[in-house]
């Protein structure tokens, strides 16, 4: 609540002006929209993908240990290194960026400018996030799968259920609590994502990939508006808390 640059005592009391400024700032609204976009995309694409893969490598597939290890590898890598690798892959010049080099092999496709394109940048970041984090989610699902007693599945088989019915009516309901945990972790992670975005784009181009955390960092530490940055952090925290409380109430209703 102060107009404070972090040097000397905070004397310049501005009341709620910082908050007013935050909500009036188009860039902050853009950051919130971007965060929500990432949340929606990861709930809609990343988590189902992880679940499908967990079911695939779950039990009786020869070579499953190998696939599990490979899928978990990106998660072990540090986020900064991930960002650097993918920056080079997304390079707009086909002679340097692998993805563009593959794209121009398809006739009639122009090389894309991925990370420097206002409309593509968020999706590129989402791809990298998926690449890095689906292994973790898959591992959580696998842990949940192991807790399902085999007898129930056998009973269902004897009753004449087929594979799809087995998955739909036994496996997924019994994974319920795991799925709720994974959703919660994923939403939290998406909303507070900082490292990857900061390394890959720094919130650019023209704030197109700004996230709440990068916005806060930029104002708090780059421009030395510690008062304003703290206000952003507070807004972020209250948002997260409300979201989680709402989510927990919703999830508890489903419990049986």
């Amino acid at each position: 609540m102060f107009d404070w640059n972090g040097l000397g005592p905070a004397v310049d009391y501005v009341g709620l002006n910082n908050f007013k400024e935050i909500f009036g700032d188009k860039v902050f609204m853009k950051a919130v929209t971007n965060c929500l976009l990432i949340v929606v995309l990861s709930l809609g694409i990343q988590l189902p993908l992880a679940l499908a893969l967990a079911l695939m490598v779950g039990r009786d597939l020869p070579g499953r240990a190998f696939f599990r290890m490979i899928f978990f590898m990106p998660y072990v890598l540090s986020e900064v290194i991930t960002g650097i690798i993918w920056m080079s892959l997304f390079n707009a010049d086909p002679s340097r960026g692998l993805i563009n080099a593959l794209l121009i092999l398809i006739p009639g496709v122009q090389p894309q400018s991925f990370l420097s394109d206002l409309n593509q940048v968020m999706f590129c970041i989402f791809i990298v996030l998926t690449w890095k984090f689906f292994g973790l989610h898959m591992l959580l699902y696998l842990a949940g799968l192991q807790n399902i007693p085999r007898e129930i599945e056998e009973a269902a088989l004897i009753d004449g259920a087929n594979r799809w019915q087995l998955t739909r009516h036994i496996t997924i309901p019994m994974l319920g609590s795991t799925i709720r945990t994974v959703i919660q972790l994923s939403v939290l992670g998406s909303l507070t994502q900082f490292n990857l975005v900061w390394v890959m784009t720094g919130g650019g181009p023209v704030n197109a990939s700004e996230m709440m955390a990068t916005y806060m960092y930029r104002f708090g530490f780059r421009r030395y508006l510690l008062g304003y940055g703290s206000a952003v952090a507070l807004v972020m925290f209250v948002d997260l808390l409300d979201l989680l409380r709402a989510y927990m109430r919703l999830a508890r209703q489903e419990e049986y």
Partner: protein
Amino acid sequence: MHICDSHGKKNIRALGERTNHGYGYRPTAAKICPQEILAKVLQYLVLSFITLIIVVPLVILVFSSLKTTGEMFLSPYTIPNPPRWENYTGILFAPSYWVFMKNSLIVMVASTAGVLIVCSLASFVFARMKFRGKDLAFNFLTLGLMFPITVAIMPVYLVIRQLGITDTLTAVILVQTALEYPGTC
């Protein structure tokens, strides 16, 4: 378990024949039907495709670690020829590398020890003792689980600066321990 989806009623046979003694099932020689093979092939195709997506960036990382900067920009995807092992020896013999390594180790050991000591004591209290406001205190601590470092970094920085321990390992260790705390207790 090998089950053909098309023969729903015969699934029971897929579980195997009852053995004469006990309750165990002895697996029958797996009956292979075309759908099953197709499903397996599809599964492996999908898995291999995803493996490829995951491995290619990592391989590129390894390859470029064996090239000079110029080579990396000229031909980013080729096998390094000749491999520049001096990149690695350069790192290993650089004095700064060992300083970084030492710092990391100090932080790791100290914060792990701190978390272990403090969290075991705290979780004992929460598990075994009854006192007023226990639930409140516990909920307050678990609040930290949904508290990402990015949100906390600003006030943490200010506290550290007030303590006059910016740019020291002590600060990193303290913060690290505090952040790990709710997850383990």
